[in-house]
């Protein structure tokens, strides 16, 4: 029975379901308890599941992730909240050196079913460190899986799947889409976690994106359609692994690809996608894979973010450039 709800609420419902069905699931982070998190994603959970399932932690991200690893070793399945993208770095060592490598280090003897939730990206007019898109810095690291839903239904199901995964999953939440509503059907049968989805079919060019940029790409495609251009929009959903097969299939059809993300272009996801798709589709591509993303500059103060972030015009500009080849 599908219900319409905001993306943030969908994650909340998904966490609730996980807490209900598996008593090894614990939710932990700063202010996740009474406050329900600064975005209310964990709203009401501590009230209903108690302080030992929904844990307010000391203000120390390395400690949060490090103890989550210990809890996982004890058989728990922690879902950790990092309050904002820019605050994940104190935990970076524990994530890349311990969390990511423990399964391999132990030759598979221990599992690391830890989910790290990170509200990420800009567009909400926030102060420094509250608008970053650091997915590259996790995708490069073997042992981690990196996903980012773009809509409420995916937010719900991908969280279920992330929690069920025996691997660590970095779950990037598109914070500026938290309030966007969509249908969520808790009885649906979801597709695989790491598979991309064509969210709009087209023939002239493929737009690939994930998380907050999917909606933008849909808007771009709609605008382009008015100009008679048929764009296919691919919601990648997963950054590691990347579903190159789906991108390839789309590009073999459209012969042109533009990748859009908020993170800086330099060393961003677009680079990996461009490199690999160019290799896979060398004879299919009519134009180089173009990338639209952030600049090689710190995320700017709020009053500049509109210029910094990929927007409708900038993506359309790239589309035009790609079509001009």
């Amino acid at each position: 029975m599908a219900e319409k709800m905001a993306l943030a609420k969908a994650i909340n419902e998904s966490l609730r379901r996980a807490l209900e069905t598996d008593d090894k699931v614990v939710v932990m982070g700063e202010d996740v308890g009474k406050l329900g998190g600064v975005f209310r994603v964990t709203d009401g959970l501590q009230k209903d599941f108690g302080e030992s399932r929904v844990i307010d932690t000391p203000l120390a991200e390395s400690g949060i992730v490090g103890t989550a690893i210990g809890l996982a070793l004890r058989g728990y399945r922690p879902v950790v909240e990092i309050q904002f993208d820019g605050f994940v770095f104190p935990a970076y060592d524990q994530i890349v050196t311990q969390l990511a490598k423990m399964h391999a280090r132990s030759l598979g003897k221990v599992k690391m079913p830890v989910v790290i939730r990170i509200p990420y990206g800009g567009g909400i007019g926030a102060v420094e460190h509250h608008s970053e898109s650091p997915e590259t810095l996790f995708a490069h690291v073997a042992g981690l899986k990196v996903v980012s839903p773009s809509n409420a239904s995916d937010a719900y199901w991908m969280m279920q799947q992330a929690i069920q995964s025996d691997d660590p999953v970095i779950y990037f939440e598109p914070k500026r889409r938290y309030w966007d509503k969509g249908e969520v059907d808790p009885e649906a049968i979801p597709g695989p976690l790491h598979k991309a989805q064509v969210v709009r079919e087209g023939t002239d060019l493929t737009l690939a994106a994930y998380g907050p940029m999917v909606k933008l790409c849909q808007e771009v495609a709609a605008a382009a359609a008015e100009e008679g251009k048929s764009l296919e929009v691919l919601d990648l959903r997963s950054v590691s692994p990347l579903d190159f097969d789906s991108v390839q299939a789309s590009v073999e059809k459209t012969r042109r690809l533009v990748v859009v993300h908020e993170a800086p272009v330099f060393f961003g996801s677009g680079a990996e996608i461009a490199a690999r798709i160019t290799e896979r589709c060398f004879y299919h591509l009519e134009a180089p894979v173009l990338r639209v993303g952030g600049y090689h500059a710190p995320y700017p103060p709020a009053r500049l973010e509109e210029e910094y972030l990929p927007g409708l015009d900038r993506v359309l500009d790239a589309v035009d450039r790609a079509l001009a080849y």
Partner: protein
Amino acid sequence: MTVDSSAARKPRRSAAGKAGTTGTKRTTRTTRKSTEPELVQLLTPEGERVKNAEYDGYVDGITPDELRGLYRDMVLTRRFDAEATALQRQGELGLWASLLGQEAAQIGSGRALRDDDYVFPTYREHGVAWCRGVDPTNLLGMFRGVNNGGWDPNGNNFHLYTIVIGSQTLHATGYAMGVAKDGADSAVIAYFGDGASSQGDVAESFTFSAVYNAPVVFFCQNNQWAISEPTEKQSRVPLYQRAQGFGFPGVRVDGNDVLACLAVTKWALERARNGEGPTLVEAYTYRMGAHTTSDDPSRYRGDEERLAWEAKDPILRLRRFLEASNHADEGFFAELETESEALGRRVREAVRAMPDPDHFAIFENVYADGHALVDEERAQFAAYQASFADAEGGH
């Protein structure tokens, strides 16, 4: 092994003794149900001056003028803070982190500093900024979203606000190591919160400052809350005790008592100048407002607590003392009221007049010596911007 390196120096007064005393008194506290440990207080909430053999010496010579100055600082800081909160509500700022209730901790410590001392604040030290002479409107740029901290740190020896919790304590320590290398007798003060005390960086700053005997004061404003989390989520013993295990003294001061904060900070700074190394000051105070304008404290705390703390208000307390001791008359308070309103107005106008940054600011200052990619992207951006101008020009 593990000889106390500070003991090898000649302290001007027995700082060590102080640490020892405090420590000895307190350690028993960790082992019994205590309500609240003692704190250094020179002014009661009722505005009565209480004697304190250890710290009186640091404020004995204070003049009525200076006392009124402290009062003025607190009132103007609170006024500025209220204006900023109002400006946020009006949409002129994206966010504001109010210092309401922490005026004494900030003004007391801020006024203990010398010009050549250096301050490393969090994001809430508006009162300290005031003491340093930073134009308050400069503080608003980052909250308005026009920059990430607009002032020159070296202009007033007041570093930029640091949002990522705890990081600045290491910068302060490194800066203090540099001061010591230079042979200067300046001191450095690092502000942080009760929540920050849990960050590994803060512990590392304790370690480095102790090992290098750096002239730094760690000034922790324990305002009882880290957003929605009470201090018990960070420590099960009083925070000032943290220092001792790193080899330097910690002391808890009434953070709503501006005189006590002034005295204790002076003592700590003196230790730094005298080569006795770091000191931890825990200013026991209260965040009377929300964490920031984005926060809703009613979700996690009741009114009683705030009411109890209101009775200990730092400004009221000094006013009572000033009045009882006849150090200030009605004229002073009335004049201050006028000055206060003028400040509010000035801030309001300055914020409203604050221009948006130039778009190209994105590419400025990313590097000091330039970077080929930034140049390339700036040029692309310029061409892209120009394409609109062309398009528009075409009409």
